[in-house]
């Protein structure tokens, strides 16, 4: 998902000319929608973990480490025929008749240091096999009350829940956020997620991620791509020593760019923290009309997604260093040192509070270095202050036994 976002942000519709401008904008939107749908997959996967009694998981491979669980080593790179080939192969179904598939596979392998790119579908097949073998007793129907549902998490971001009849005319991602309570519903959710990624059939209302990437690949291959920003590969804010065979990283050394990147990482951490907290706080609501801290967490999680989008738009215009190389920075999406959620409710809110305060410190430094974007920084700080003011009374009431946290 993060790699798709990076690829989408590397496109610059404004620099395209003539009719190409609209095409580039459409491709960017398509890739962002794929990433958004992957977000739905992530949430549904949490439900699958919940139904079999597992812990929630938001960890991922960090740059530049490699794992066989993943289709290819995690890499943040601008969109290109090579990166598209890797995405296509990872999302492709077992059987496909598209004529250029061998060429795409070859490109993908070349772009993956000579290693064949894994299909995500294989991973889903393995998980589906696993779920088919589980005992009935392994599924906990009562966990549905603690799972994410479309009503809560799909709002504003979908044409309609799958299976309902709404006009397909709107341009919108189609999120799959499904509570699961049994083997049947779990398998259906897994197949829906897999189908959205690798589907081969032309659905009446949507193409799979595989099909969408193939279409963009064809356009990319047919002409020059001056509208792709010259973004660094794997931008990082700290010095790291890659493992042998890992892709190299690009350290951000321009002072202002570094601060923007740090601010991005901080808000990314806040997103993950809010998301984890909100999903842990799922459950039956005893006082449905009462102000709900969970609602604020969810609003905050969506709000941080918007801020990441805004910050990415700023970062892709910043130089990675002080040389005249022309290489631009990109959103680093670095994982925090820990994704662990504090055990105690007050600790969770304090974690959000600390991140917000850290964000304010970076904003002040950005102002000190004259980084511009004053209006945006003002608005972000206004929001920080508002959120901190809402956290304070929640922390004061956490000792009460009725608090929903």
């Amino acid at each position: 998902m993060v790699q798709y976002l990076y690829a989408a942000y590397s496109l610059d519709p404004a620099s395209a000319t003539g009719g190409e401008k609209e095409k580039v904008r459409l491709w960017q939107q398509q890739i962002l929608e794929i990433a958004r749908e992957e977000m739905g997959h992530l949430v549904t996967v949490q439900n699958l973990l919940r139904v079999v009694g597992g812990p929630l998981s938001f960890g991922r491979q960090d740059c530049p480490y490699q794992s066989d669980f993943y289709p290819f080593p995690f890499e943040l790179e601008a969109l290109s025929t090579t990166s598209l080939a890797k995405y296509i192969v990872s999302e492709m179904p077992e059987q496909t008749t598209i004529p250029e598939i061998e060429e795409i596979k070859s490109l993908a392998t070349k772009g993956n240091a000579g290693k064949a790119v894994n299909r995500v579908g294989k991973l889903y097949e393995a998980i589906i096999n696993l779920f088919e073998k589980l005992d009935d007793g392994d599924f906990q129907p009562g966990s549905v009350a603690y799972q994410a549902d479309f009503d809560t998490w799909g709002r504003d971001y979908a044409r309609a829940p799958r299976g309902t009849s709404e006009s397909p005319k709107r341009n919108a991602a189609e999120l799959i956020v499904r509570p699961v309570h049994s083997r049947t519903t779990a398998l259906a959710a897994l197949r829906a997620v897999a189908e959205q990624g690798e589907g081969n059939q032309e659905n009446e209302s949507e193409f799979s991620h595989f099909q969408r990437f193939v279409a963009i690949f064809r356009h990319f291959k047919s002409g020059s791509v001056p509208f792709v920003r010259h973004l660094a590969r794997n931008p990082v804010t700290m010095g790291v020593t890659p493992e042998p065979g890992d892709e190299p990283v690009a350290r951000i050394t321009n002072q202002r760019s570094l601060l923007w990147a740090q601010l991005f990482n901080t808000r990314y951490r806040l997103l993950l923290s809010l998301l984890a907290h909100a999903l842990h706080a799922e459950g039956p609501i005893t006082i449905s009309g009462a102000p709900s801290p969970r609602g604020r967490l969810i609003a905050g999680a969506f709000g941080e997604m918007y801020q990441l989008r805004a910050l990415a738009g700023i970062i892709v215009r910043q130089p990675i260093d002080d040389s005249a190389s022309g290489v631009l920075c990109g959103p680093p999406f670095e994982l925090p040192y820990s994704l662990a959620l504090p055990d105690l409710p007050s600790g969770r809110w304090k974690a959000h509070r600390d991140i917000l305060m850290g964000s304010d410190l970076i904003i002040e430094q950005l102002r000190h270095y004259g980084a511009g974007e004053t209006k945006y920084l003002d608005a972000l700080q206004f929001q920080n202050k508002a959120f901190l003011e809402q956290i304070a009374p929640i922390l004061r009431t956490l000792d009460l036994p009725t608090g929903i946290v």
Partner: protein
Amino acid sequence: MSLPNLLEIRLLPPMAIGRLGASDDPMDNYDVIVPDARRLGWREVKPALTLHVDVASGGISGKSIPNKLSFKDAKGFIRPLSPFLEVWVRFQEQPELVPLTLHHLTERGLKPSDIRWSVHVANHKAFRRTANAADKIECRIPEITDHQRHPLPGQCENFIKGATIPFGFVQYIQPTDAFPEIRFRFTPASGYVYAPEGSEPKSFHAEVYRKDGPWAGWPDPGGPLSTMPGGIYYGGDTGKSRGFLDDACDGIIDVELAVNGTKLSSYARVMAGPPAFAPDSFPIRRIFDELEMAMNGPQSDGGTNQDVQDIVRRAFESIRLMNTTVMNGNQVIGHGSNMTSQDSNDVNRYFAPIMAPSTVDNLAVQAIHEYVFAALESEVPPWFAQTFRRFNEIGDLTDTGRRRMPAMMRGADGRYLALTRRQLDIIRMASGLISLEQPAPTRATPPLP
């Protein structure tokens, strides 16, 4: 040297909205601005240059910028908003309109009394329901050339003999050397409620309506000819009107001036709205938006982030004034009056909240809109054009349809509120979309083998 001919006169603004208020002291002038330093904060209501009218003489006694604003007088009465109308003029070989002044009149041998005003205001709220012409409340003043204050008594065939509803008053402001412009002022009524004879309880200003008049006991019959939404009057909950009326009105003010045997004329519309109880907040869909679309059409000339932010700002300003948990239909105390109840009442939809109940905490809903506003400050193009309800989707009662933006709010026709087509087009333009109706990008790609 001959004077340039007067080619035309205009009464400006062409539409003026006053506000009801029982105080004798009209509201001071003010501006409502978004402070640069706190663009996500409250709008600031700032005192502005105010003209003071001496009611007895009809002249302007002075002008000043008040130190502070008060929407009520010392007795606690709400101060009415009393707009001025001004006569502007276009002279031969001068393309720009300029204010007509006492000087212009004098040099042409004319007097202020050569300008003739007429007023026609009315309240047709009962008539709009009953379609009975005897329920029209009307006030006509055929000619005003002096500077006295003229009351506007609203008369109605179905009123008790001699009873009227005061609609406020008008005054032709006497031009002077210090304030030579030609002005006319409309001051709306007090904001009182009027009732049929014998009404109980006596929580109204006066009995004016005949107890056997059609409006007293009127049941909205429903059907295509009824005014929508139905039943929004006192007694509507029982299905029958109790015959109550208010002193709001709207109408036309005409002005005429004969110059060298040629009659020049113009007119403007005036109306009385309720007092501004949240003057630092604007609704998401304003009369301005309606007029802009009526004048310029549903296609915008362009759209910027700033234009979209103006809409988003009005969204969170509206949310600040809403009890979002009640409006969503959360089970708080009964169902409340909200779209959730309307959906059940109007079309027998099963009662169900619109959004997930846990997501509509007011601070959370405010926050999500403020986050959007903040992100737009970075000049990232709007990404949410698809979340809005279209004008032809106001009756979509699917879960998805009910959750479109603006959410949980009722439009003037009784169904879900939608932005104007022009507002939506502004958002589309700022988003860089060719069309809101184009096939989804997922379908715009060539079919695959």
